[in-house]
């Protein structure tokens, strides 16, 4: 497992283990509206496509519960995650690069980033699944792509933001050095930008992949009323096993899950983190560093060197040569100064393209709004009731999570010996995606007479408490010893100690944890409030429930409205509650 203390120590200040927040708003409110309209148009498009498909029956796939089938299922799941991850990585780098270097698009792209990373992705799960199945007649491919698309949407934004902010924080003099020696774009990317951004990208990748497991499990076990969108994979295996109450199968699947995660950590993340050590932007050599025998092996194997090094180096050389040649011919070209007079024709083309795009977006958004007219007042009331219920549920989950994680986290953070035992355990527990445990949990609840009301809160708790716990531990470790000694020296009472030293000390970390946890809890509500198990549908009042029920019944206006309400609530809470708290943490409680 990753040693947390090292992990936190290697991060640049300002980088958090969780969702990054765009702290200073530089864009006007209008841009938020623009993003909202584009989002609305986009989502309406998805729903429309889904419409065509609606009504076709889906043949359910058979999930085998034999342990022998597990390796194949696990393989499917891993492939889905990998595809989605590499897609996100490529997109994140492109998006971040464009946002950092295109002055005109920057504000709009940042506003979009900020909104997109705060909307609960799973609220699109029903709509996206319908749409993808409609687009691709072979149902398997449609559902596969839907799952990958959803994972991608959940994983990409924090990576994009990390890359963007790394690019923007590159020291000015390094930039000038690349400029004065006329580095080409490729050379600048390879020798300055990617190395500088690497550590942030890696930490965000780890976060994203952990989140991806959560979404993947939800996608793989997705069933909507009579419609079955399940995909062969670990998620569906678990769900089926829970449905028939096969304890052995559940145990097998969970073991496989933990094994995959431990292996990913040991075979991928650890070597990558150890390797990324060279990208630390520090003046002096740090002490604690992550080691990986595997990395050592790879780096010292001659075959790898020949394979990777030789080919890449040759390509690089060729590129530098070509660029230098081009520059020479340009400069020696009789001193022709390139004038940048734009063609009037291309200008008109660009304007008309832009207009066309604008009209398209506005039409779609308009259609979406007309669709909303069909919502009856009682349905609206239901949605609002659901929103209130989910809001309460999310907050109860956050409170419960804080209630146990703050004291435990502080205790762990203050005692290195305890930390050494507790941390690896907590990390393994945290690495199992909450969605994978959900069917098992529900099964137990049903047996002991609990209902979905408790179940949904339990799922939210399972999915979100770890963010808070790990951040509190990091916060407690970050409190300087001097402060603790002052508290001891002056015989602070327990209450005074908490009020003046501990709580303010962990505050920035706690807020980071809570923001992430809150996002996670909203996300979880989609499957937490509606879950088919053992031939019955377990459900409880809530916004997530509204979304799922509406999709099952084909009431697209409700699906649309409920999704909008959820996105709106989350964005509003972010703006009104979390952002000011974040700012306070950044200014007053920074150690």
């Amino acid at each position: 497992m990753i040693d947390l203390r090292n992990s936190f120590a290697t991060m640049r200040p300002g980088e958090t283990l969780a969702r990054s927040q765009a702290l200073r708003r530089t864009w006007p409110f209008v841009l938020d509206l623009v993003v909202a309209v584009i989002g609305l148009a986009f989502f309406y498009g998805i729903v429309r496509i889904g419409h065509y498909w609606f009504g076709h029956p889906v043949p359910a796939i058979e999930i085998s519960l034999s342990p022998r089938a597990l390796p194949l299922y696990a393989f499917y799941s891993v492939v889905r995650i990998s595809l989605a991850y590499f897609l996100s990585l490529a997109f994140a780098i492109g998006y971040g690069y464009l946002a950092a270097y295109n002055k005109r698009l920057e504000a709009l792209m940042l506003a979009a980033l900020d909104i997109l990373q705060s909307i609960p992705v799973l609220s699109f799960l029903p709509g996206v699944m319908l749409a993808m199945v409609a687009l691709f007649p072979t149902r398997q491919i449609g559902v596969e792509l839907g799952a990958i698309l959803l994972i991608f949407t959940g994983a990409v934004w924090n990576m994009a933001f990390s890359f963007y902010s790394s690019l923007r924080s590159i020291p000015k003099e390094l930039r000038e050095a690349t400029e004065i020696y006329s580095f080409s774009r490729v050379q600048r990317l390879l020798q300055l930008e990617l190395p500088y951004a690497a550590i942030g990208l890696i930490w965000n990748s780890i976060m994203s992949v952990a989140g991806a497991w959560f979404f993947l499990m939800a996608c793989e076990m997705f069933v909507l009323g009579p419609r079955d969108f399940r995909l062969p994979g670990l998620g569906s295996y678990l769900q089926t096993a829970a449905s028939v109450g096969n304890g052995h199968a559940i145990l097998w699947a969970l073991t496989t899950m933990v094994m995959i995660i431990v292996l990913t950590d040991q075979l991928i993340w650890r070597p990558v983190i150890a390797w990324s050590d060279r990208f630390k932007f520090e003046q002096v050599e740090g002490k604690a560093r992550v080691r990986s025998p595997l990395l050592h092996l790879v780096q010292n194997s001659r075959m790898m060197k020949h394979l990777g090094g030789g080919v890449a180096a040759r390509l690089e050389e060729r590129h530098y040569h070509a660029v230098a040649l081009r520059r020479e011919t340009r400069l020696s070209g009789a001193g022709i100064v390139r004038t940048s007079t734009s063609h009037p024709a291309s200008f008109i083309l660009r304007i008309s393209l832009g207009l066309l795009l604008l009209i398209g977006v506005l039409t779609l958004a308009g259609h979406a709004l007309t669709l909303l007219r069909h919502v009856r007042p009682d349905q609206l009331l239901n949605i609002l009731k659901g929103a209130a219920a989910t809001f309460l549920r999310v907050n109860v989950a956050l409170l419960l999570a804080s209630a146990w994680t703050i004291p435990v986290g502080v205790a762990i953070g203050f005692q290195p010996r305890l930390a050494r035992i507790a941390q690896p355990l907590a990390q393994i527990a945290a690495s199992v995606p909450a969605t994978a445990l959900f069917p098992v949990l529900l099964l137990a609840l049903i047996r002991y007479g609990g209902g979905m009301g408790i179940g949904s809160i339990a799922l939210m708790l399972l999915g979100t408490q770890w963010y808070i716990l790990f951040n509190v531990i990091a916060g407690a470790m970050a409190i300087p010893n001097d402060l603790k000694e002052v508290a001891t020296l002056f015989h602070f009472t327990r209450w005074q100690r908490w009020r003046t030293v501990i709580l303010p000390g962990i505050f920035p970390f706690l807020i980071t944890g809570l923001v992430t946890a809150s996002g996670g809890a909203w996300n979880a509500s989609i499957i937490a409030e509606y879950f088919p198990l053992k031939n019955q549908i377990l459900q409880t009042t809530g916004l997530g429930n509204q979304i799922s029920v509406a999709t099952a019944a084909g009431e697209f206006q409700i699906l649309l409205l409920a999704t909008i309400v959820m996105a709106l609530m989350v964005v509003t809470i972010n703006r009104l509650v979390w952002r000011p708290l974040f700012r306070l943490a950044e200014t007053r409680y920074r150690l």
Partner: protein
Amino acid sequence: MQPSIIRAQRVEKYYAQPSENRIQVISPTDLSIPAGEIIALLGPSGSGKSTLMRMLTGLSKPSAGEVFWHEKPIASANVNVSIVFQSFALFPWLTVLENVEAPLQARGMNAAERRKRSLHILDTVGLDGFELAYPKELSGGMRQRVGFARALVVEPEVLFMDEPFSALDVLTAENLRSELLELWQKKTIPTQAIFLVTHNIEEAVLLADRIIVLGRNPGHVRTDFKVSIAHPRDRKAAAFTQLVDYIYKVLTQPDAQPPALPQSSTGKRVRDQRLMHYQMLPHARPGGIAGLLELLLDHNGKDDIYKLADDLAFEVDDLLPIVDAAQLLGFLTVTEGDASITPTGAEFANSEILRQKELFRNAAVEHVLLLRQIVRAIEAKSDRTVSEEFFHDMLDEQFSEEETLRQLETAINWGRYAELFDFDASRRRFFQSEEIPPELENSAEIDA
């Protein structure tokens, strides 16, 4: 006259403001870099030394005027210059050798040739044996050697240096300076001219064949003269100390006459900061002012600023703001590079803390318009608080955004010390009150 390698013709830099005015950073300046000279550009902070240098290298485009490279516009010329940076600006993820090779890579040189030249230059700057080390494994001085090697490996015609020694300790800096001078004098390196930006007066006198002194608000050339002292130069020699003293005088002398105001083509009015409403507050702390005055009193109330700086082991950039601040508050006067304490200044230096605050308060209200205005604004309000934004907007008319924030920071610092007002950092408001207002106590409760 020698033909110049780089020639700047009426270059200036300004930032357009949304309002009528614009903020002039550098007024129209002519400057040329001929072959065979080491030129030092001296000036206090805020005089735009770095900005001017970056325009000369072609890194930054002048707002008006033009820079020529061998009499061709610099934007379309194949410029061959290097910069040695204050922060070294090495890529920490590349080895020493890779760092030095990177500029050659950009020029498309083949690997064997690249390696040969890099190893040769590393040998020249004394880094033999460090090729495979990473910068973070090296000491500051060694790192700057890598910076020099990277700059020299492209055999630049003009070597620019942006305060290259100021991040190093005194001994290391001295060592590097003399080595650089040796490379230059023995023509080990094919560099035609060196352009050094510095705020260290002795460094300039030690190295340069020609010194250009910049004044500020907006940046302009105060004086430009040749240094004819023979090398090796002795810091203790009379000619040396006289020159250092002369430059101090130039730097501390209030400008006799402002340079001609630039006429802008857009018809926008350009304001000269010296003629404007708010005086520029020097960024000095009250404690520093008190310390300087006490030292001056020990020196019988009058001393050479150069000697003071020497006593304190300060550089101009550190000392001048304190001298300026004390002068602004009427605690001392400066004539011909000598600072002499005034009666109020002497009383201030001799008093205990509460009396010091009182004297500071009186001086601040009398001499500093911004503080006077803040106090009046607070007193005019029934709730005795004023938003910072109000003053921010007024200062913004006159200073750049960055400078406005620094001005406010200094004003808050002085005002708090003088107990003229207090400042609530979370709500960004000035306030005045005997005790902490109740709502403040509440907010502290909630925050905790």
